């Protein structure tokens, strides 16, 4: 925890908030929402909510931690709304990677993960660069479930309630997200390795 995190609450000051916490909250939102407009909107909503609740939270705890708490809520709300309006493309068969990865008997197809696996000791930051790109190619409904589950460490029941989906739908989305991500990361990694080997 750094110094900023321990700044006591001193009342709403829009300019100071944006200057002191704007980047921090934006990066956090960006890593979860993967969309700069959405992240900006969530941060703005966070500050607006902060202004409205400032008296209630006056004098309590660290300001940045409080705003982060609001932002987490806003991210979930945004994801819920995004999913509500993007249901058609979220988890339809067209976005089902199982057809590509498994044969009719449910066994791995020959080309499922054909390439050399990346070294396990590879820097997680390097993996993130690849994962970040792959997440943008996943249907939002799958990527969001995956991010809320892994990044926000929300449990299945909470995600189902927040996104208004059934548990079975949740597992379908999460599994497809993992399959899709694994395939995407493997492919990109292989492509990057080839580029490097030809370089």
């Amino acid at each position: 925890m750094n110094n900023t995190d321990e700044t006591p609450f001193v009342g709403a000051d829009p300019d100071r908030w944006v200057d002191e916490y704007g980047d921090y909250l934006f990066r956090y939102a960006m890593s979860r929402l993967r969309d700069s407009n959405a992240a900006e909107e969530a941060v703005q909503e966070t500050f607006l909510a902060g202004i409205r609740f400032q008296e209630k939270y006056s004098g309590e705890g660290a300001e940045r931690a409080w705003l982060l708490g609001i932002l987490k809520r806003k991210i979930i709300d945004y994801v819920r709304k995004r999913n509500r309006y993007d249901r058609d493309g979220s988890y339809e068969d067209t976005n089902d990677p199982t057809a590509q990865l498994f044969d009719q008997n449910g066994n791995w197809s020959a080309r499922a993960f054909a390439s050399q696996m990346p070294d396990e000791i590879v820097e997680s930051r390097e993996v993130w660069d690849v994962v970040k790109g792959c997440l943008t190619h996943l249907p939002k409904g799958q990527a969001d479930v995956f991010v809320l589950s892994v990044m926000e460490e929300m449990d299945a029941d909470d995600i189902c309630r927040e996104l208004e989906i059934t548990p079975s739908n949740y597992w379908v989305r999460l599994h497809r997200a993992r399959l899709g991500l694994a395939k995407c990361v493997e492919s990109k990694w292989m492509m990057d390795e080839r580029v490097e080997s030809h370089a």
Partner: protein
Amino acid sequence: MLNDKSTSELITKSLAGILDPQQQAAVDSQVENSEQSRKFATLNKLIHDSISDVAKRSLDGDTSVAPGLSQDARDRMKNQLRAESARLSQSSMEMTLVPDLGVSGSSNDIEPSVADEQFGQETATNAKSATTPPLTLPHSNLPASEARTVKTRFTLQKVLGAGGLGKVWLAHDETLRRNVALKEMNSAAAEFPRAWDRFRREAEITGQLEHPNVVPLYQHGMDTQTGQPFYAMRFVGKRTLVDAIEEYHERMNAGEDVTMDLHRLLTAFIGVCQGIAYAHSRGVIHRDLKPENVALDSFGQVIVLDWGLAKVRDDVDAGVGISNEMVAGESAINKTMNGEVIGTPLYMAPEQASGRLDDVDHRTDVFGLGAILFSILTGYAPHRNSSLVDGDQIAVPELLRRISSEPTAAPADVNSSVPGDLSEICLKAMQFRPFNRYQSATEMSDVVQHWMAGRSERRQQYSNARSECRELRTAMLSSVRDLERNVRFMSCLPPIQGIIDAVKGRSGDDLATWQERLRLIYGGLLRTNCDFTSVSYSQVNDGNFQELIRIERQASESSNVRKIPASRLASGPLTGCMKKAMLGNPDEVYVALASDCPKAGELNEASRLAATVPVFDLETEEEFGFVMIEADLDRLTETLIRDRFRTRGRLFVLDNECRILLQLDRSGRRVTEVDGQPMNEVSPCWSNVLPVLKEKGEYIDERNHATYATRIDLVPGRYSLALALCLAESKE
């Protein structure tokens, strides 16, 4: 035996940490035996680790996770936040403070516009509503974002209002063909889980309170598309008590007769009391009573709205009240709300303002009822003055501190036209400590009804008293005019000139003969006018007067009229009233109190009225003397009062200097202790009455109907008496 697809699914669950040991063992075995499964698991672990790492770094503020805000975004954000901050500071005084909810009713929803959204609904029991084809909006001029068509029984027509929790629509029930009010949770509030609980509780509490003064609930359901709850209730019009109060005060300030307006407002107020009393009997405390939450229609219906902050008491009798089990989430909400401030600051009870929610009980609502009554009487919220410093609004926390530490002002201090006893009723309801307030809404209702009944009776009594006072004034003026006519007539009799001629040696009859003739006439006058105490004829020479004839009534025996022998006739320098009378023209009567005239007889000077007319020698047309009739003011007024006055009250007759000439108590008995004292010293409130009386000739106590005064101009512009009546001691 698991196939690869099933294995991959179990790997996903394994990474989520939810597999039991047996499943985990099966997965481990498959991963060990299948290269593809192993690759899938390995890839997922790498992905998982990298994401966990990013999650941690983003939490720590690592700038490499993503770029920061652009300058444009930063500027946009600042502008919007400044605007919102300014808007909130303006509106916060009027808004309801709701824990966990935004105080603003405006939506900053990031959801796209929902024009023409299909609003699917299902009932609280999850039974699907019968669907009908979409209906066309009847109000095409609505903004697109406001206009929606529902595909089931309700057509949303227009927004009636919005609060912290939800938006209320005028909707048409297509099945029953009637208008309803439909409340849905607004998107801003929907972001907070407790808002859902609160909204559901509001619907459930409202639905369980069945009373003519509580809005009836028709349907509670949920929008299956947005997942947000709504409920439909009776539409009682858009007019609230706020509108009625504003109208009342505008009319009053314009000088119109608002007697019936106040009566209607108080009748509505009693309806609110009864609705709240019923809720209390069911264990429900409203906690946000204010004029905005009382709907009125044109036919006398009074409906208490907005039970969103209502609290269900734990100690209510089973089988009678609404229990917490009947209302979702109540106990949890109460626990978490302790120490928080709920309600509307400008109408808030001290125990609410200080966040002592354990102290909030039905008497908190009694304070709220007092606050509504305060608004009715003054046109302002009770804490309005506390919210201002030099005309500027103070911050809400400071206002709450003031409310929780200072007593509320009396309505009469804010608006001097508020009836004193009604102001006291209001003030009692808003006492700082709950045990000093009325102990129930019913008690408060009874007190106000009693006041209204008493006011009607008192108004009638006051009206009667005014009429009687006016009659009395007319009768007194008429008596004075009789006095004037009589003295004028007595100065025109033939013996008057006969005496002059005799005194001047011009006639054959001697003075004694003329004097005897005049004595007979004057004696007859006194015998037929029992209020007259004396009549005399005096000659004036060189600033001195000499009575020539005097007939007077014996003070101790009023029926005895006697002539004063020559040796006892008065003489001496002219008094003030004599001088003034002698300055007049023939037949010009000068009327004054006998205090200006010579002391004579045994009567109290202050209670004698003297009418004097100059006498001129018809031969020479020079002034000769004067005729004076004195009347006993006590007797005159008492006779008139007893004949004409039926009102029970203290009646005062005041002289020109507003000193007490005569006082009758409520039983009509003469009270003499304060005779001669200035009225101000007897009753301080008369300092307000007397200037009005002097300027307008009449003081009417529209506020308390306790005091009335009217001026009797004995000699217009020169000498007046006043009648003052106290029906009840004023509550000044």
